[in-house]
Structure formats: structure tokens, C-alpha cells
């Protein structure tokens, strides 16, 4: 600054000393401080330096014009005035353009660097806002971006309805406000959409107490487009990573599930083999005794009864396996439905358990005049057998098992309740899965893990539902609800086959 002022004064002094008038060759030396001012301070600096040069040389040129008119020397002086102004302003303009391009390039690099790190959208916007505030030399700056249905705002709390940002967000076009309020110093506001695939995915808004020139607005539009693209890319990368993580998690879960299923099937094969072998061994042993020995009639009857029970057990396991096979193929169990009176069926099934083992106190509570249900008697018996068998297996010896039935609107509810250790709440939803066994129950009693899966399939094939209510250390109650068809069944059995 002082160099420029000193140079201007020195050139003027040299022209005055030389006394060469307006045509002095030294006048061209004004170009040095003028160009220097333009390069240092831009168009304003160049223009001011040129104006200062003109002012300083005016006392030399103008009196000459007044004395002698427009002589060639005077014209040369005037041309020098014009040239100084032109060179000063043009050099400054070019320098300004270069500076703006450099700043724009640096800003774009800043944007890319800021958004290079993966971060949540609100944090990325806050960082970007801080970086842009440094570069854009504005009094206030805000960045707004859509994140699905919500708006993330950096530089404010919210986007008010009808505000400049809201308008730009809705219209997708830049908007300029030359004065935002009634202050003596006008504050300009400019908002540009952050465009991505032709859609405004956010807004960059700036406010400045002073001009926001056309060139600056054009630069801000370019920055807005760049920020939009960069944000979209960051979001896509983030989404892709999130999807990849989710996919990996799902694959891992599926693999764990498959491994568990595999383990369960392996365990099932071992258990099923054992379950099948036990009655087979009994049948084999007792049949050999009957074939090889002559026994008293009472003993033959007892052995026949044992063989019958074991054969029934074997048949039940085979039936369960067949039903499971159908379930796994997506088929419903085959049913032969007839009107069935529940109370005799329940009493008969319970009697079988009472005869087999007297380890538990099994009671029945059936409401009188229960409606008949349309069901497969064999399937119903298997359902009851499975439930009562489970109740006995998983409750302590000597405890009570209660089997009951009651009318429930247009349905009948059958309940089997025990006073066992109960089922942990976190696995209750899994007990109807094939092969699944409650982890700590495996050591308590033998089982294949398919009984309840078959129960559920059979009940649902009847159009009913099954529910488990269990309280650890208190007991478990399984409720089977079977629908009663509209219109009472006649006492005369009417056979129908379903499934």
C-alpha cells in the first residue's frame, strides 16, 4: 500500500521536475503502481490507484487543455488517463476472477475432504458448515438436508414454514433476497438447492451484511450442486455399508439357525432311534418269552398288555414322524373328522395314563353338556396324549396334572395344566418349532422335540389354536381351542373326511 502511494507520488514528482507536460514519457511509469495495486487489491484497488494517478496528473494535463485546447500532447495525456483506468480495472478484474476460481477450487476440495470421512448426516453437515463458513466469508450460514422424511439442519434449530430455505427446498431453484430486514445496513440472503439427480435434497443458505455479487451467487450455485452430489454419494456409500452389514448379519443369523437345525436334527435322529428302539426291544423280548416259554394265563395277559402299550407307543411315534414329514413338506395332517364328544375322549385318554403310571395325580374337570366338536378322534387323542405326557414328564413326581374342558362361545377350550418348573419366557415362542427342546429340559426327560410341533399342526388343521401360559416355578398351562361348527351335531355320527 505504502509502496504504491510512494510510487505514485514519485512518478508525479518526476514528471513535475522534468516539466515535460502531459506528453512526458514518464507518465507511462504510472502503470507500475496501478498494475501492482490491481494485482494486490483487485479491481477496486486498481481503479483507486488509477484514479489517484489521474488526480495527481490532472493538475499537469488539465491546465494545458485550458491554455492551448486539445493539442496532441493533451490528447496523449487524456489517452493515458483512459489507459490507466482501463488497465487498473481490467487487471483487477482478471486478478479477481483468478482469485475467485482459486477459492472455488479450494472450497470444492474442502467439501470433498470434509465429506470423505464416513459420519452421520447431522455430523457431516455440521462439519461442512464450519468449513464453508471459514471459506465463504459470510455472517451466517446454514445447511439443510433431507434424511428420508426428516430435515437435518446445521446452523439452526428448524426450518420455519414459508422461510427462504423452505421455499428453495420446495421449488428447487435458487432465491436471492437483497435485504432481509429493516436494518440500516442491508443484509443479503441467498439460498441454493443442493441438487442430486435433479431433485433438491437440501439447501445451502448464506447471509451477509454487504453485497453477494452475481459471480459469488454463481459460485454458490456450483458449490450447492457439488455439495448435493457429495452428500448423495456419502449417503449412498453409507446406505450400501449399512445394507452390507445388515446382509452379513442376516446371513450369519441364517447360518446359526441352520447349524442349530442341523444339531437339532442330529439330536433328533439319535433320540428317535432310541425312542423307537425302546418299544421295539420290549416287543422283541416279550414276544420271544411268549414264543419260547409256557406261562400262566395271568402272566400272558400281563405281557400282552405291556406289548399292547409298547405297540401303541411305537405307533404314536411313527404317526408323529409321518405328520412331521407332511408338515415339513407344507401339507396338513390327514384327518378323518366326525362329531366327537370331548368328555369321554378326555376321560379315556387320562385313564390310559392312570393305568400306565401312578406317579402323578391326574384330575379331569369337564363342564357338563359340552358341545360336540368336528374332529378326528385319533388326532384328538394324540393331541391329548402329547400334552398330558409332557405335563407328566416335566413336573415333579407326586404333583397334580389337571385336564379340563369348557365351552368358550362358539368354541371349546381344552386345558392341560401342570405344576412343573415352567418354561422360560424367552423360549416360550419356540417350543412349537420342530426338533426344538427347551435347553434345561433335555436332561429332565426323554423326548423327540416333535410332539408339540405335531400338536400345533393337528390343532390348526382343525381350525383351532393352541396357546401356552407358563410361569417359572409355578407351572405351565396349555390351552387348545377347537371351533364348534354352527348348528348342533345330531347324536347320530355323521362321518366326513377332511384333509
Amino acid at each position, binding site marked *: 500500500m505504502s509502496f504504491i502511494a510512494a510510487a505514485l507520488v514519485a512518478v508525479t514528482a518526476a514528471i513535475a521536475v522534468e516539466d515535460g507536460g502531459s506528453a512526458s514519457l514518464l507518465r507511462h511509469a504510472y502503470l507500475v503502481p496501478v498494475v501492482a495495486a490491481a494485482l494486490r487489491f483487485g479491481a477496486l484497488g486498481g481503479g483507486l490507484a488509477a484514479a489517484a494517478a489521474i488526480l495527481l496528473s*490532472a493538475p499537469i494535463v*488539465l491546465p494545458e487543455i*485550458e491554455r492551448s485546447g486539445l493539442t496532441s500532447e493533451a490528447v496523449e495525456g487524456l489517452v493515458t488517463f483512459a489507459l490507466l483506468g482501463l488497465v487498473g480495472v481490467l487487471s483487477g478484474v482478471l486478478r479477481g476472477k483468478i482469485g475467485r476460481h482459486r477459492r472455488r477450487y479450494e472450497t470444492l476440495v474442502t467439501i470433498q475432504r470434509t465429506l470423505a470421512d464416513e459420519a452421520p448426516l447431522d455430523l457431516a453437515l455440521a462439519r461442512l458448515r464450519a468449513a464453508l463458513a471459514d471459506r465463504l466469508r459470510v455472517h451466517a450460514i446454514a445447511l439443510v438436508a433431507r434424511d428420508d422424511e426428516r430435515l437435518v439442519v446445521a446452523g439452526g434449530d*428448524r426450518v420455519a414454514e414459508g422461510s*427462504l430455505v423452505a421455499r428453495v427446498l420446495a421449488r428447487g431453484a435458487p*432465491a436471492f433476497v437483497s435485504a432481509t430486514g429493516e436494518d440500516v445496513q442491508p443484509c443479503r440472503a441467498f439460498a441454493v438447492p443442493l441438487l442430486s439427480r435433479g431433485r433438491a435434497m437440501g439447501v445451502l443458505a448464506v*447471509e451477509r451484511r454487504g453485497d453477494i455479487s452475481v459471480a459469488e451467487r454463481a459460485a454458490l450455485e456450483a458449490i450447492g450442486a457439488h455439495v448435493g452430489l457429495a452428500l448423495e454419494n456419502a449417503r449412498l456409500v453409507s446406505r450400501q455399508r449399512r445394507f452390507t452389514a445388515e446382509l452379513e448379519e442376516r446371513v450369519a443369523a441364517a447360518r446359526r439357525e441352520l447349524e442349530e437345525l442341523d444339531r437339532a436334527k442330529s439330536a433328533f435322529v439319535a433320540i428317535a432311534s432310541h425312542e423307537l428302539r425302546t418299544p421295539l426291544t420290549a416287543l422283541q423280548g416279550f414276544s420271544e418269552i411268549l414264543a419260547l416259554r409256557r406261562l400262566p394265563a395271568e402272566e400272558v395277559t400281563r405281557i400282552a398288555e405291556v406289548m399292547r402299550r409298547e405297540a401303541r407307543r411305537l405307533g404314536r411315534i411313527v404317526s408323529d414322524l409321518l405328520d412331521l414329514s407332511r408338515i415339513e413338506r407344507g401339507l396338513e395332517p390327514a384327518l378323518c373328522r366326525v362329531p366327537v364328544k370331548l368328555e369321554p375322549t378326555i376321560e379315556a385318554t387320562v385313564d390310559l395314563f392312570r393305568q400306565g403310571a401312578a406317579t402323578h395325580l391326574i384330575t379331569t374337570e369337564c363342564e357338563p353338556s359340552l358341545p360336540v366338536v368336528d374332529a378326528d378322534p385319533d388326532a384328538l387323542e394324540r393331541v391329548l396324549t402329547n400334552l398330558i405326557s409332557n405335563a407328566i414328564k416335566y413336573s415333579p413326581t407326586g404333583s397334580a396334572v389337571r385336564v379340563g374342558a369348557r365351552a368358550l362361545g362358539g368354541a371349546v377350550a381344552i386345558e392341560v395344566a401342570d405344576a412343573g418348573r415352567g418354561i422360560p419366557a424367552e423360549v416360550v415362542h419356540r417350543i412349537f418349532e420342530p426338533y426344538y427342546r427347551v435347553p434345561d429340559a433335555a436332561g429332565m426327560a426323554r423326548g423327540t422335540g416333535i410332539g408339540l410341533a405335531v400338536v400345533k399342526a393337528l390343532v390348526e388343521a382343525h381350525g383351532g389354536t393352541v396357546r401356552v401360559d407358563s410361569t417359572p416355578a409355578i407351572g405351565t398351562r396349555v390351552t387348545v381351542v377347537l371351533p364348534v361348527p354352527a348348528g348342533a351335531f345330531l347324536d347320530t355320527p355323521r362321518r366326513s373326511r377332511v384333509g
Partner: protein
Amino acid sequence: MWALDRPCVPRAERLCADTPLALLAVLGVGAGVVAGLVELGVLPVHAGRVAGVTAAHGALLATALAWSRAGVIACGVAVALIGLAAGASQLGPVGALAYLGPGLWVGLLATRGRLTRLGLGTPVRPWPIAAGVLVGGALSCHLLVSASRTLGVHVRVDHAADVLAAFAYDLGANVLAGESFFRGALFSRAERRWPFAAAATLATSAYVLRYLVDPLLPKSVELMVGAVFYLALLGAINCWLFAWSRSLVPGLASAAIFFAAYRTLGVR
């Protein structure tokens, strides 16, 4: 932040909103009638000058005050005080002291906070005032040096009373009304709509034009060119001073110093 929090309503106010058209019409008609009567010889020439000064400077100052929403009474009082001062100054150099009236009135309004839109009555830093003094001083020095080197103009040191009277006129009417209207009102309003360069060009062009049509300005080519040169510079720089400081005081200082120097010049 305004762009986020406040509703963005489209601008409804026009550039010339709040102009006291009735008052301007009265001033124009009054000046025309007086000029006609002077032409017919009914009134003395002095009456024409009083009416002209009152109409021109009164219109500028009243418009500036009206745009600042100072109120009709404030505008009327300002016009009346200028008219009174113009009349008093015709009685002799001492009468020109009456030009202090409009300045005091504007100062009173400013202290009451009614002229903040004009950039008066708001706090102002010392640096812009110093810059205004410097600009006024530099232009004055240049004017005096240039003038002293030409054949037709010289620095006048006689008739000090006339110089002081003219200086009082500048302070109370010419500079006060010019800066209030062209910078405080016109430039300020234009800057709210357009970029600085456009607003400064409009205000400075109007400022220069106002002096070119002034019947009191000698019509020689040299003086016309000089007036355009210096007034354009002064106007543009004062616009910049106003935009920088948001106060009218630096511009008033530079213009007052420049016109004080101008009043010392005389045609040989």
C-alpha cells in the same frame, strides 16, 4: 438465522414509497408562481432566489426525512426553516446564520432516534469520520491546486463574510439536503435492492445531475467539466463511506470540507 426462522414475504415497498408528493407539489407550484411573478416584475429577484433555494433544498431534505419516516411535521418544519434561512440570508451575511436552523432541527430529530434510517443518530466510529475528513481534505487540496494552475479560476481571499455566508448555506442547506437525500435516502434504499455499484451509480448520477441543472452553477464548460469530475468523485466516495460506516456523518464531513474549499475559489 433469518433464512431459516423468518417467513420470506415478497417485497412490496416501491423505491419511491413514502415520498411527500403533496408537499413537493406545493413547493413546485410555489416556486413556479414566484418565478412567474419575478418575471413579471411583481416580485424582486431576491424573492425568486429564496423560492428556488427553499423549493430545491426543501424538497430534497423533506423527501429524505419522509423516507426515513420522520413524520409530516418534521418535513414541514425542515422546509420552513430552509425557507426562513434563505430569506434571512438575503438581508446580509449575518442573516446566513439562520442556516444553522435546519441543521439543528435535523440534529434534534437525530438525537430522538427518528433518523436512524438516514444513518443519523446511530453510533459512529472515529475511523470513518477521519476517512471522511481525509477524503474531503484530499479533494479540496486537489481542487485548489488544479484551480490555482488554471487561468480562469483563482483562490479568493477577499470578502470573507461572503465566503462564510456561502459556507453557512452549504452546511445548512446544500450539503445537509444533498447528503441526506442522495446518500441517506436514495443510495440507502437503492442498496437494499441492487448491488453497491448500481446503487452508487444511481445516487451519484442523480447527485451530479442535481448540480448540473442548478441555475446557480456557472455555465462555463471548464466549470461544468470540473463539477462533474469532482462531484462524481465526491458522490461515489461518500456512497462508499456510507456503505462502510452506515452513518451519514463521514459523508457530511467530506462534503462540508470540499464545499468550503470550493467557496474560496473565484473567477478572475
